[in-house]
Structure formats: structure tokens, C-alpha cells
């Protein structure tokens, strides 16, 4: 009976180690804190109506940012744990982590950073910006979009569930290579948590991607042919098409892995005729394009930023678009370079090596195109441009090490070493994360109506860049010294230790950079009058997202613009902005269906991790029922009349004029870190001295 009700859960599944205690306390504490705050502020209704059931891609984008930002901090803590262990676990000392625990940490680090940080940030940006850039009011299917987000969030919770129950995550590396991830070698629930957190969020990604392909193809403003689409939208489009093409492979592969572990099938086992090498192939057929799914929107961001901040149109729009299409096309046919060392023949290896190198051609074309765009421009070095300039250096180093790794005989010496790890961190930090930071600082005025604090932002940039060099230059060297990745222990005779310590220092510097970014955002809100962007177009930008208010109204545009050139807004600014015609607008109604389905999906995953059959069945039925009700809901929209739109617009204009006055009266400058600390201290003093906490 107990087994029927609770599956494999027993007393041992409860937290009983320091890290599971710590993790559980942190998560429960954070949850309780949020519940108390929301209850005290009486915000539950607001939370439900404005956020949880929202179908507005702008709000969903913000929620993606919040989840990803939180996960970035968590993934960052794991980095520090990894490097702390590697700095001290030498000779007789085995550090403060067991080998198994250490392996779980880097596995979780990889999954969190790729799935829940990079992916989340990218989806957040696409959600917020793409509809605005193409002059659309909403997405092709607003419901699919909420569903995609909440599945993503459910996956993010699943990846943290092991703290509370089970106490172990996969200890297999981020792709859980077979047969190590099979029941034979990983009998615990760790790999099951891995499977279901990726499965749930992966399905969310597929749905989101389908939606954006539909949106971009079908909902562009009149006049915006594919050849006039802004470059970020192009990057997002390529990326989403790739996601549609490869995420089903991940879904299928994860199901097969699940059959192996749960039903005792023999797909990837060493016995019974299974073929572990097939797993390696399948997972990388998804895994390699995945990196480009993250990278392409960032290429788009950089293209926009370079053009805007050089105050010039992009040098060759056609080459830029072709470059992005080229990268995404070739990226589908290079997966084998992740396992040259598995013993394929020279012809096969050489073929995939060439395919990999070919990707360097469109990538270089993009870089050259950006150089030409800056040439004879008027370059403004605000933080978005700084992130771009940092990106180029790191990305070039990463790119060159990537081409080295694409040469099979060289790869034999570099594969699985820290050189490889340094390579892909150059790409993912230098390319994706810097791209995301570039995008966020570029569009922050759009999100909030406030410019980000420049001063602290610049410090954050330099801390990130210096921290990156401190961490990853030694890592390249370590790889050349023969240090393999994922080592929880080594001998001091290797001489690696001082470099590991430098890496740890670099990690701390990056952590300071991250902290500065959080400070930057808080400081921006503190100085909101001073930093208010009264123009709606703070960067003198070129594309349509700047042709509406910041932040935009929930219907995005009062009148859908007509587009006649690539830089639609730039042209509008120079040829005169057309008059506003108020009209009725169809607005999708809020829906909780996405939230409910994701809750059930989470329960399905949880049930299968712990083999609780009844819960799985009940939850699957739950999903189906919600789907039916949603599917046969014939009135998912309501109409906002022209009159209402006009009232809303006039109210907003009035408010904006008041804010502009406040902003013009404010003569302060961007605060620095020291000012910020002073403010925090005086705030804390105020609370203590005047006993303000009593009110709470």
C-alpha cells in the first residue's frame, strides 16, 4: 500500500546531508518569504491576474528573465563550488565534496546554465522584442506561449527538486552519456530528475519555437517582407526554426532513455543488444544545434547594436542574413565532431571536420560585416557597445580554439580536456551571455522606461571581462597541460594547482560582476526620475520596437505601422511619423490553462521519478482535460474598442508628461557603487532607528 501511494519515496529520500539541507532550507525559506510578502501586500489576486494567467509576451518575457536570473545565481554558486573543490582537492586532501557530489554539481551547472539560464534569457528577449520588431500586437498563439513558459518554469523547479527529495542529481555530465546514465551504472533517482527536468522544459521550448515560427512568418506588419525584417528577428527566426528541427530529437531520445530506466528496455544499455553509441549520436544531433539556437539570436542582437551605436545602417544586410542562415544550416550537420574520439573512420571524421570548419565562413562574414558597419560611423560607447566589443575578442579566441578542435587529430589531444571546456565557455559566456547582457542593457529602456545606470554597468562589464580572462585563460593552459575536465582530485606533481586557484579568483571576480549587475538594476529603480527615458528612443534606434511607448501598452501599437524599408523606425523618424488612427483591437483573454497543464506536467515528471503510477495517470488525465477545455474554448479573445484605446493612450500621455517634468527637474547623475552602499546603509538605519520593522 505504501509503495503504491508513495512509490520509491521513503525516509532516506528526505534531506540528510549538509547540501540537501542547505538547498532545501534555501528553497523553502525563499518560498515562505515570497508567500509572506505577497500575503502582507495582498497581491495574490494581482499575481494571478497580471502574471500567472497573462498571455502578454512582454510580461512572459519578464518572467523568463526573472527565472533565468535566479538560475544564473544558482549556477554561479555551483561554479564556485567546483573551482573551490579543484583548488583544494590535491594529493592527500580530497576536498570538501565527495566525487559523486562533485559530479552532480557540474552536471547541474551545465544543465542550469544551458537550459534555464541561456535558453531562458534568449526566450525572454525573443518574447519581448520580436512581436514589437515585426509590428505585431501579440503572438500567433498566445496560449502556446504561456504553456511554453510555464513548462520551462516547471523544468526549472524540477532541476531543484532533488534537494527536497532524493538528495541526488545526475552525476553524469550535462548530457548524461550512456551507458553511464543507465540503470546499471546510475541506479539512483538523479538521472530521472535530469530526464524529466529536460523533458518538460524541452517540450516547452518546442511549443514556444513553433509559435515564434508561426508568428514571424504570419504576423509581420504590412510591407515588412522577409527581406526587410530586423536582424534580431532574423536571428530569432533561424534559431526557432532550428529549435523546431532538433528539439523533437531530444524529446524522443529522452523518452528512449526513460524506457531504458523505467521499463527496462535495451536502447542504450551495454547488454541485451543496446547501443550506447547511438545515444551519443542522438543527443549530439540535438546538442550541437542547441548551442547555435542560443547563439543566433545573439548574432542578431549584436548586429542591431553595432548598427544603432555606430549610427549607420548595417553594412551588408544581405550578407548578415545569409550569414545567419548559413550558420544555422551547417550547424545541423556537424554533430559528430563531439566524438571524433569514439573511433569512426578517417573519412567520416574528416568530413565532419570540414563541415565544422565551414561554419567559420559565415561567422567570419558576420564579424567582417560588423567591422564595416563601424567604419565611418559615429560610435557611442554605451554599455551595449562595450558588451559587443568584449564579445568580439572572447568569441574570436573561442572560435579559433573551436576550429582547432574541428581538426580530428588535434581533437584527439584536446577532447575531454579543460581546453575544450575553456573553448565552449568562451562561446557560451563570450557569445551568448555577453549577447544577452548586451541585449538587456540595450532594451532595458524599452522594458521599463528607464535607462540602466551606465556607471555601475560599465564596472560590471569590466569585472565580467577581467574575471573571464582570469578564469578561462588558465583553463586553456591547463588543457594543454593534459588536465581533463570534471576532475574532483589530482596530484600536486602535475603543477595544475596554482592555475586552478587563479581560476577560482576569476570566478569570484565574475561573481562580483554579477552582483554589480543586480546592484545596477536596483540603483536604476532608486534613481528612476533621473534615469527616466523621456524620449522613447534613447539610442536613436532604427527598428519598430522603438516606435511605441516604453514600456509598450499591452496591445503594443495603437496603429499597426506600415513598413517600407529595413530600418523602418529610422525612416519614420526622417520622413515623418504617420498619424494615429484609433481602431478596435482584438486582445487575447488571459488563460490559466498553461499554468495548470504545467503543474500537471510537473507532477507527471515527479511521479515517474519516484515511480508513483497513480499520480502519473491522474496527472496525465489532468493534462488532457485541461487541453480539451482550452481547445474547445471558442472565445479566447475580446475586443478593445477604439474609444477605450483612445482613453488609454490619452491617460498614458498625461502620465508621461508628468513624468517628463519630474525627469527634467532631476539634476542628479548616475550613482556609483559607493552612493548605492550609502543609500542602503541609510535605509537600513532608518528601519532600525525608527523601528519601521514594527509596521510589518
Amino acid at each position, binding site marked *: 500500500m505504501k509503495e503504491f501511494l508513495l512509490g520509491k519515496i521513503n525516509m532516506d529520500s528526505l534531506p540528510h546531508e549538509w547540501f540537501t539541507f542547505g538547498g532545501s532550507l534555501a528553497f523553502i525559506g525563499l518560498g515562505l518569504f515570497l508567500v509572506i510578502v505577497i500575503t502582507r501586500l495582498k497581491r495574490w489576486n494581482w499575481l494571478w491576474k497580471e502574471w500567472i494567467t497573462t498571455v502578454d509576451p512582454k510580461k512572459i518575457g519578464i518572467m523568463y528573465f526573472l527565472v533565468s536570473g535566479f538560475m544564473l545565481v544558482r549556477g554561479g554558486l555551483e561554479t564556485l563550488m567546483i573551482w573551490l573543490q579543484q583548488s583544494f582537492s590535491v594529493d592527500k586532501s580530497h576536498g570538501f565534496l565527495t566525487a559523486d557530489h562533485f559530479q552532480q554539481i557540474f552536471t547541474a551547472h551545465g544543465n542550469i546554465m544551458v537550459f534555464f539560464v541561456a535558453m531562458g534569457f534568449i526566450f525572454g528577449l525573443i518574447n519581448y522584442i520580436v512581436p514589437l520588431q515585426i509590428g505585431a500586437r501579440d503572438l*500567433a*498563439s498566445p496560449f*502556446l506561449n504561456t504553456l511554453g513558459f510555464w513548462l520551462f518554469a516547471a523544468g526549472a523547479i524540477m532541476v531543484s527538486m532533488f534537494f527536497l527529495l532524493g538528495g541526488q542529481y545526475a552525476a553524469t555530465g550535462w548530457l548524461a552519456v550512456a551507458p553511464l546514465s543507465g540503470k546499471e551504472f546510475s541506479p539512483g533517482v538523479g538521472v530521472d530528475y535530469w530526464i524529466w527536468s529536460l523533458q518538460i522544459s524541452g517540450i516547452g521550448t*518546442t511549443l514556444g519555437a*513553433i*509559435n515564434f*515560427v*508561426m508568428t514571424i*512568418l*504570419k*504576423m509581420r*506588419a*504590412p510591407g515588412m517582407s522577409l527581406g526587410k525584417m530586423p536582424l534580431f528577428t532574423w536571428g530569432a527566426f533561424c534559431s526557432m526554426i532550428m529549435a*523546431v*528541427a532538433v*528539439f*523533437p*530529437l531530444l*524529446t*524522443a*531520445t529522452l*523518452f*528512449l532513455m526513460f*524506457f*531504458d530506466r523505467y*521499463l*527496462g*528496455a*535495451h*536502447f542504450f*544499455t551495454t*547488454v*541485451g*543488444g*543496446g*547501443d550506447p553509441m*547511438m545515444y551519443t549520436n*542522438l543527443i549530439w544531433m540535438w546538442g550541437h544545434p542547441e548551442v547555435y539556437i542560443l547563439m543566433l539570436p545573439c548574432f542578431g542582437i549584436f548586429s542591431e547594436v553595432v548598427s544603432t551605436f555606430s549610427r549607420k545602417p548595417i553594412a551588408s544586410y544581405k550578407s548578415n542574413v545569409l550569414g545567419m542562415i548559413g550558420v544555422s544550416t551547417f550547424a545541423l550537420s556537424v554533430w559528430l565532431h563531439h566524438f571524433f574520439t569514439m573511433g569512426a573512420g578517417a573519412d567520416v571524421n574528416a568530413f565532419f571536420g570540414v563541415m565544422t570548419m565551414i561554419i567559420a565562413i559565415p561567422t567570419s562574414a558576420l564579424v567582417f560585416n560588423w567591422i564595416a558597419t563601424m567604419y565611418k560611423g559615429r560610435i557611442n560607447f554605451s554599455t551595449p557597445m562595450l558588451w559587443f566589443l568584449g564579445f568580439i575578442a572572447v568569441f574570436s579566441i573561442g572560435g579559433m580554439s573551436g576550429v582547432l578542435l574541428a581538426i580530428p587529430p588535434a581533437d584527439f589531444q584536446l577532447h575531454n580536456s579543460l581546453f575544450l571546456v575553456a573553448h565552449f565557455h568562451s562561446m557560451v559566456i563570450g557569445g551568448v551571455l555577453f549577447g544577452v547582457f548586451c541585449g538587456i542593457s540595450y532594451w532595458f529602456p524599452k522594458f521599463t522606461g528607464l535607462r540602466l545606470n551606465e556607471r555601475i554597468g560599465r564596472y560590471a562589464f569590466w569585472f565580467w571581462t577581467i574575471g573571464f580572462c582570469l578564469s578561462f585563460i588558465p583553463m586553456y593552459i591547463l588543457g594543454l597541460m593534459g588536465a581533463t575536465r570534471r576532475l574532483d582530485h589530482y596530484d600536486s606533481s602535475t603543477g595544475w594547482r596554482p592555475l586552478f586557484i587563479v581560476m577560482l579568483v576569476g570566478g569570484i571576480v565574475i561573481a562580483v560582476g554579477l552582483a554589480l549587475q543586480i546592484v545596477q538594476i536596483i540603483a536604476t529603480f532608486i534613481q528612476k526620475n533621473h534615469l527616466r527615458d523621456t524620449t522613447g528612443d534613447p539610442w536613436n534606434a532604427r527598428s519598430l520596437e522603438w516606435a511605441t511607448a516604453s514600456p509598450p501598452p499591452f496591445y503594443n501599437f495603437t496603429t*499597426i505601422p506600415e513598413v517600407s524599408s529595413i530600418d523602418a523606425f529610422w525612416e519614420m523618424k526622417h520622413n515623418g511619423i504617420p498619424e494615429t488612427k484609433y*481602431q*478596435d483591437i*482584438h486582445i487575447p483573454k488571459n488563460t490559466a490553462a498553461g499554468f495548470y497543464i504545467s503543474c500537471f506536467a510537473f507532477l507527471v515528471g515527479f511521479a515517474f521519478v519516484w515511480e508513483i503510477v497513480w499520480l502519473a495517470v491522474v496527472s496525465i488525465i489532468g493534462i*488532457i482535460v485541461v487541453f*480539451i477545455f482550452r*481547445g*474547445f474554448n*471558442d472565445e479566447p479573445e475580446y475586443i478593445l474598442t477604439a474609444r477605450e484605446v483612445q482613453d488609454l493612450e490619452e491617460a498614458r500621455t498625461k502620465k508621461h508628461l508628468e513624468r517628463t517634468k519630474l525627469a527634467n527637474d532631476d539634476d542628479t547623475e548616475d550613482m556609483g557603487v559607493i552612493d548605492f552602499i550609502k543609500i542602503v546603509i541609510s535605509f537600513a538605519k532608518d528601519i532600525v532607528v525608527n523601528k519601521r520593522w514594527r509596521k510589518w
Partner: protein
Amino acid sequence: MVNEQTPTHHQAEADDRALFGFWIYLMTDLLMFSVLFAVYAVLHDNTDGGKTGKELFDLNLALTGTIILLVSSFTCGVGMIAARAGRKNQVLTWFGLTFILGLSFLALEFNEFSILIREGHTIQSNAFLSSFFALVGTHGLHIIAGLLWIAVTLGYIVKRGLNSNMVRKLAMLSLFWHFLDIVWIFIFTIVYLRAFV
């Protein structure tokens, strides 16, 4: 977008988008199936000393299933024509027929699986059977989903009548059903026919 003011046009655009989105979804589903096909192609010889497909499969049974599914595709198509013409009773009849045919296909498959399992040939036996059950079983799950979909849609048509929303839903449903038919033809060829060649 001036035209947006007219609600019918707005609806037509939304329908068009939904159908297009459904096509993309079918593509992702097809990709998932192609993984299962590829896995079957790699593993179908790895019987670990167990029986091969030739010894296990009943070609006549599979052929019967195939014919049933093909006919169901036909009835589904006729039902769709009726739906476009707005003939509610015919829609109910033809899709009802499709439902019954689908159900009998499922029964055949269930029968095949239960015989195999009773004789000790399960998903755990060897890689060949793992990939067989995964591929054919996934198709079967899709059929179940399709049947559920048909049943619910017909229920709503009885309740709400055959409005334009229902026609759009039927259009997607019939796409899905034809899609399953096509996947099955591949399964029939690659799994069953090939075992006997």
C-alpha cells in the same frame, strides 16, 4: 492593418495561422517518429539470441490493420468534405465510422502486443523488441489521442452544432489522422514487410 476591423477576416487569418502552426507541429512529430525509425533501423538485428521479426510477426494481421487504417483515412476525408459543406449529420456518421475503424485497428494492435507479451517477448527482452514496442507503441498512443480527439469533437458538434470553429478543428483532426496513416504505412513497410523479405 485596416482589414483587421472586419471580424470575419480576423477569424479567417487566425484559422489560417492555426492550421499553419498545426502543420509545423506535425513536422516535429514526424521528426520524433524519424528518431524512432532510425533507432529501429539500427537495432532491429540486435535480438540478443531471441526470435527475429520474421518469427514473431503475423503479416496478415498487420495487413488487416493497414487496410483498416487506410479505409479510416478515406472515411475521415469524406467526413471532411461533409464538414466543409456544413452537413452535420454526415459529419457525425463519417467521423463516427472513422472512430470505429480506429478503434478496431487499436484492438488488433492490442491483441498483437498482448500475444507477444504473453509469450515472453517484452520490451525488456532485447534491443530489437525494445525498438519495436517503442515505435509501434508510440504510433498506437497517437491513435488513442486521435480517437479521444474524434470523440470529444463529435460530442461538441452534437452540443454546439457545426460552426466554423468546429470545421477548423475537424480540419486539424483530419490532418492528424492522415498523418498517422502515413506513419503507419512506413511502419508497415519498414517493420513488417521488411521482416519477411
